[in-house]
Structure formats: structure tokens, C-alpha cells
């Protein structure tokens, strides 16, 4: 049994393991960082700490949307790397049985573009795409 924070991008639902989530913040002023990859929106001041914020929509090659009152920054901490990801909405936590979590078929065309999705979780009749946090937090280093 694991718990996941449910985040929404449009109508799609994504899950993040709850022990990797440090906090969920309302959108604040983001300072652009020049020369950073385009999906890095910039950095924010989170109670005195500087945290890079990335647009998960851009990373998943979805269309970008304007921020609104529901927009949240989910602060993820993995080992010593802390990043924030911008999602449309995050206001639910679900429990998923371990047997209801499937690893995805890497060769399937269905998931190829979204390699940041590690597994799929099923709760009742909902389907949750579960982020591969390790991949998400090391993306920078792999890319350059």
C-alpha cells in the first residue's frame, strides 16, 4: 500500500509518491534563469531557499496553459536534489495497493513520448500515471 499525491494536467491525472513530496505551494513569482533549458521556468524563493521550477507540461510535450488560482508548484525532494514542478491542480491524496501498480511496457508506442512516467496505478476506475522521480530530478545532468 503506497500513497500518492494526485496532480492534474488538464484531464489527465498523475501521481507522485508522497514521501518524495516536500510541500505543495501556490504559484509565486518565478525568476527566469537565462541559459537554462527551456522547460526550466526559473527559480522561486521558498522560505529562503532557492528552488528551480520546471514546467511539467513542457517536459511531457503538452500545450502550456496560463496559471490560475488552482495552479500549484509541487516541491519534490529526491536525495539532495530539490525541484518544483508546476501542475494545474493538486488537491488529493490516494492510496493504491501495490498489486494495482503496473510497470509500463517500454516498447509500447502509447507511452514512448512520456518517458518520465515510470508506472501506472489503478484506483477504482481511475488511471494514475506515476512519475519516475529519479528521472525527473536528474534530467538536467543527462541532457548536457
Amino acid at each position: 500500500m503506497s500513497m500518492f499525491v494526485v496532480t492534474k494536467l488538464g484531464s489527465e491525472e498523475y501521481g507522485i509518491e508522497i514521501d518524495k513530496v516536500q510541500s505543495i505551494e501556490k504559484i509565486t513569482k518565478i525568476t527566469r534563469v537565462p541559459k537554462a533549458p527551456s522547460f526550466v521556468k526559473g527559480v522561486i524563493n521558498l522560505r529562503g531557499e532557492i528552488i528551480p521550477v520546471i514546467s511539467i507540461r513542457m517536459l511531457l510535450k503538452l500545450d502550456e496553459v496560463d496559471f490560475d488560482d488552482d495552479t500549484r508548484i509541487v516541491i519534490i525532494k529526491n536525495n539532495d536534489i530539490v525541484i518544483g514542478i508546476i501542475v494545474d491542480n493538486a488537491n488529493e491524496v490516494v492510496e493504491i495497493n501495490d498489486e494495482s501498480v503496473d510497470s509500463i511496457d517500454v516498447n509500447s508506442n502509447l507511452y514512448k513520448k512520456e518517458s518520465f512516467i515510470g508506472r501506472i496505478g489503478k484506483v477504482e476506475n481511475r488511471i494514475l500515471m506515476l512519475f519516475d522521480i529519479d528521472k525527473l530530478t536528474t534530467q538536467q545532468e543527462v541532457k548536457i
Partner: protein
Amino acid sequence: MDTNQYLEIFLEESEEHIENLNENLLQLEKNPEDSHIVDEIFRSAHTLKGMAATMGFENMTKLTHKMEDVFQEIRNNSLKVSSNLMDVLFKCMDALSSMIGKISQSGNDAYDIENLIRLLENSNSNEEIAVTNNSEESKVYVNKQVNLYERDIIEKAASQGYKTYSIEVIIDKNCVMKSARAFIVFNTLDNLGDIIDSTPSVEDIEDEKFDDRFTVHLISKQDKDVIKAKLTAISEINEINIEEILYSKEIKDSKNFENAANINNDDQIKHNKTNKSVRVDIERLDNLMNLVSELIIIKTRLEGLESNEKNPDTIATIEYLERITTNLHDAVMKVRMVPVERVFNRFPRMVRDLSRELNKKITLNMFGQDTEVDRTVIDEIGDPLVHLIRNSIDHGIETPELRMRKGKPETGTINLKAYHEGNNVIIEVSDDGSGINFEKVKNKAYEKGMLSDEEVNELSNEKLVKLLFEPGFSTSDKISDISGRGVGLDVVKNKIESLNGSIEVKTEVDKGTKFVIKLPLTLAIIQALLVMVGNEKYAFPLNSISEIVNKNKSEVHLVQGKEVVMYRGKVIPLIRLHNVLDVESNEDNDEFICVIIKKGDNLAACSVDELIGQQEIVIKPLGKYLSNVKVIAGATILGDGQVALIIDSNNLF
């Protein structure tokens, strides 16, 4: 006994003692006759042994015990300091260091010490034979221990027919009350004559602060044998060695020596003093620093509000707060400062080992060891300096024969100097070796395809020097253990730049090479100039700025397609900051503001839209995730909570 809770203290203190031993051994090698040094070494070794035994590290105890035996013999003058002996001792030191390393990692001191112990024992037995032949010499040595004041007394006593004896008393190891025995000895001697001196001091002996032996100087009319007979009558005394102190001319010659020894002693006292400190976990200091940083951010915010404030009381209070935070900041900074001595300490040993290995004669001079630098800088600067000194020894200093042929003194010199300059610390590594051979650099670079045909003929020496810092560059023909694998200088440069510092080289053929490293005093809080570029705020570290000037469009020239401006008679590149940072510039006037930034001797002009002002800022890292962003050195939080990025001027040009 559960010793775990003491492990950390043990490790720290052992490291300190090992460092101390290393240093003193080096001193001893230079002044083999200085008894103060031997005493100091003996004390450290003894403490180390005691600590290791308490913690139950057997190998370490065994080894230090054997070392102690050797030191004891040196102290008794029955063993002479030779460089072979020193080699063995240094090997033991290395073994001890690696044991400490092992203990901190795995909690045990498994190490093969048999070999070392055999070596130590050999050095013992060889000398035992020599002792008998050397008694003449030991007399001279005793003489040298006598200080000026005593000499006066001895001289007077001698003129009145008194004799002066140096009496060494060795108390039985099983004796329970050593100080009581010693007291009886003192009493007996007092009846025979006057005691003028004792080592260790009388107070120490009373407190049982001695091992199993002590030496006293006695003035007496009695014969040597009479004294001996009286003393041997005391029980639990193992051995009595009595020697008459003969007052010879040699003593007068030894005056210089005495002075030298005194100076050394002063050093020792100073050294001991620096060790008298409170141990604080660096994390706690970091935490303190963070809190001060927060305070400074809030202070800046209050200052922002102050401008709207009419109440003079509020203004005065805020000004007072400002003064306090500045002082607090300074105080915390000072706490985090450590003398560069900590890094420098390991170099004498390194230079000694390397010069022996390479058969070169090298003296290492160190200046300004007490220059203080932030703890974080100290931790990082060690490796680059090792690289540079190794380079100097390997490439710089020539072999003694070659130096003689060049008409230079046989012994090469390496100077290591540290000093403050403004808000920076400068560390210089210079040698009087062969200097950088530019032809060789050129050829090598050409071979490696780093230079084109034209460039080979055109490049100035300054440009060639830059090549040295390129990855994979080495001029050494053969790869040695010491350097020449081509991973040296680029690593040094990267490290120093990651600390916001810079490195420069000055070299002259056959005169030597000098590396000058410039480092910021602290990495956490700096003075910065805030500027606007487009709609974004950026901060320039103040120590990278040389000047701010206004330039007119007409002053911008093109050289090979690149924009340049004239600055104090020099042509320097113009960097349009809004282009580098991908911002739309708001300014479209003919006049624009240029921040002249410096990197070593190189200058460049940075165009900015607007100046906001100077401010104390707290540097916050961008984090690992964004570690590849080169032009930005970090971020800071302004008074209003906004984030401003700090420009890394080293990477702008």
C-alpha cells in the same frame, strides 16, 4: 567501556597530534640536536599512544609505543637522527594516518605494522652499539642544554671549586608513587649540594607529569661516586647516570644555537595557543551563518521600508539594527575563519618526500600561515595547491647539477605566500626553477591540434599561458608519479573558479614561475552591485568590478566582427549583457552604462540598462539541478522577497 561516544574526539585529536608530530619531525630533521623539539614529539607520541590504548586500537598502540621507544632514545642521545631514521619515522606517520582513516571508516585499525616495527627495532639496536663510542658527544650535548642563566652559575661555581653534574634518574617502571621517589631523590641531592635545574620541571615532577625518568643539574663539591652511591641507596630507582658538565668553549659557540632554539620555542607556544579552542561542529556554524543571512535579508527589507518612514525614532532604531547586524555578521564570519596554516601544514612533508624521491634539493618557505580564510574555502583549496607545488617540484625546479651549470644555487626554493588584499585572499606559489618553456608549450599544443599553423607563429606568450589551463595539456615528456598526466592545471583552474576565485601565471625563463591565486574571503555574504537588464534584476559581485563608466554608441568599434570599446587606452571587449542573458533591453539611448569587470588582468565592459545600487547580499546556490548554468553563479533574495541572480563574471568572457 563504551568508547563510541569518544570516537569522534579521538579521531579529531589524533589527527591534530599526527599533524603536530609530522611538523615537529620535520623540525627535528633540520635541528637534530634541539631537545625542545624532541620533548614536544615525545609528548605527542605519548598522548597518541595513551589515547589509542584507551580506545582499544591495538595496532596503533603497538606502533606508537615502538615509536616512543625510538624517541626516547633520541632524547637520551643514544640514537642519532639520520635521514634514514627519519624516513622510517615518516613511514610510521603515514601508517598512523591511514589507521586513523580506517578507524573513521570502519572502526578498526587493521594495518600491517610488523614491517614498520621491525624497521623501528633495527634502528634501535644499531645505535645501542654506537652509544658507548659516543659518550664524548653526549657530554657536549648536555652542555648545550644549559641556558645562559645557569651557565653563569656554573661558571661561578667552577671558580670556587664546585663541580656541576647532570644526573639522570630512572625510576622503576613498577613504582607506584613516582613523585614520592623523586621527592626523596631531590631531598638527598639537596643535602649534597644545590639543584639548579631539572627537566621536567619540579612542579611537573611533583604532579607526576613525567614518564619514568628525569634529569637534574646539581652543583656540589662531592665526588661523582659519592653522589651515585647515595642515590642508589634509594629503593625503586633503576638507574643513575651522572655526568659532569664540563664548561668548554663549545658552549660559547652554541649561543647561536640557543637563540634558534628559543625562537622555536616561541613558535611552539604560539602553536599550542592556537590549539586551545572550542570544537564546534561545522554544521552548527553553517546554521548560525544561515540565521545571520536571514537577518540580513530582513534588515535590507526594513531599510526599504525606512524610506517611507517619517518617524525619527523608527529610523534611528533601524540604523541601530543595521549596525548590530553588520557587527554580528563580522563576528560570525570570524568564527568561521581558519588560518591557512591548516592547509599549509602538510606541504613541508610533501616537499621533503618529493625532493628525496626526485633527488632534487628544495627548500620550502612559507609566509603568512596565519592569514585567515573561510572554512569552506580552506577545505577546497588544498588539492589545487598540492597540484601547483607538485608541478613546481617536478617541472619547475631543476636537478642540482643543472642548477649548478646555470649558475644558480644548488638548492631550489619554493615560496608559498598567503596574504589579504581588500576583500580577497591571495595565495602565491612561486619557484626559482626553469620557468615555462614557451617553445615546448607551442610544440605540444600544435601536436595536440590545439593550435593551427598560423596561430603557432602568432600567439603571444600570454595566450600560450592560457593553453596550460586547457584540459589534457601537459608539457612533461614523460609521465611521472608526481605530475604530467595532463590533469593538473585545468582541474586547478576549475576548482578555483568554482570558489569565485581566479588564477594567474607569471613566468620568466630560468628565473622561475609564479602562480597567483585570488580567492574571495567568504563565499556566503558579499557586497554586490545590483543592476537592471531589461526588466530583470541581476547582481555583480563587487570584487569583480573594476569601474563603472558611461559610453556612447559612437565609441563602440568592431574588431573582427566583435564589439570593443576603449577603456584607459586599452581595447577591451564589449559584452551586451541583454544578449548574453536573452532579455529585451529597454534602453535605446546613445549613452549606455558599462560595468567594467575584471578577471585577473583581463578586463571586459558589460552593458547594463540601469544601476540600482550596492547591497550586501547572501549567496544562495542554484542547486544541483541547475549546476550546468554557466553565466549564473547563484541567486540571492532581495529585501522584498524577490530573487535576483548573481552574474558569474568569470564565465562571461
